[in-house]
């Protein structure tokens, strides 16, 4: 006995999907998402101030990074003296070297947190943020900003 497959829907038109509920959902979702979307990703960078109980105040290490127009200098590490890094010739290489010094300090004092940034008056804000990034990425957390005398 031969079984014959019965063709389903033969001779009828394919059923159309009702897309209107999906459309209504999209119409509600898109404005809601547009409202809370950020097209230029702006993020927050925290900082501490002298005397406000920041991480640098509580740290056993009094790490300071001096930032002038011409150089970076890491100070306040016991039994160590780091040579200033000239940053006016090759700023990228200087930042890499600063990061290496900071990584070295953090490896020796892993429990320390916070660093004091002593910034010269004419240094642009962009450079300050770059050093704050290096300090944070080396594991020291937020920086405390301090203005250096001219």
């Amino acid at each position, binding site marked *: 006995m031969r079984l014959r497959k019965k063709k389903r829907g033969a001779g009828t038109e394919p059923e159309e999907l009702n897309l209107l509920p999906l459309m209504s959902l999209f119409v509600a979702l*898109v404005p809601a998402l547009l409202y*809370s979307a950020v097209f230029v*990703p702006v*993020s927050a960078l*925290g900082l501490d101030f002298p005397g*406000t109980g920041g991480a640098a105040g509580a740290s056993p290490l009094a790490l300071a990074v001096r930032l002038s127009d011409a150089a970076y200098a890491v100070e306040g590490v016991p039994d160590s003296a780091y040579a200033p890094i000239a940053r006016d010739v090759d700023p990228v290489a200087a930042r890499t070297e600063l990061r290496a010094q900071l990584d070295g300090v953090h490896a020796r004092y892993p429990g320390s947190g916070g660093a004091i940034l002593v910034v010269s*008056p004419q240094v*642009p*804000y962009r450079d300050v943020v770059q050093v704050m990034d290096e300090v944070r990425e080396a594991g020291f957390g937020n920086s405390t900003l301090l203005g250096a005398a001219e």
Partner: protein
Amino acid sequence: MVAKLQLTSLIDIFTVLLLFLLKSLVVGGAVVSPFPGVTLPPSSSTASFKESPVVVVLKNQIVVDGEAVCPTDEVTQSTELKVAALEQALAGVRQKTETLAEHAGSSRKFEGKLILQADETIPFHVLQKVMYTSQTVGFYDITLAVIQK
């Protein structure tokens, strides 16, 4: 014969738009957009903001909550740490927040939080004056706004 609306292409557009918007969605924290004319410095920080008043330091003027307060040149040339016009504007913001807190209960109380949007070329001594002035009015918790790298 009844004409049917072809919705498939519109659904395609909405799907792509939805995916793009979901990618740029900020979950938690306040949404902060850069003030027109300010070039924020890039940073690797990914932290989010809390709802706070915004001080913008542009190349030519200082703005508090959308209103121009004083020219930046004036602050650059000043030898004093405190900026009188900024102090007055921030005191007004603080008073407004405290008045709102009285009427709305403790959920909106003054917490001393401030968002600072400064142009990346501004010299540090100008920012130092702005931050010092903000602290004299009681804004001790200052967060810098940066562009995520």
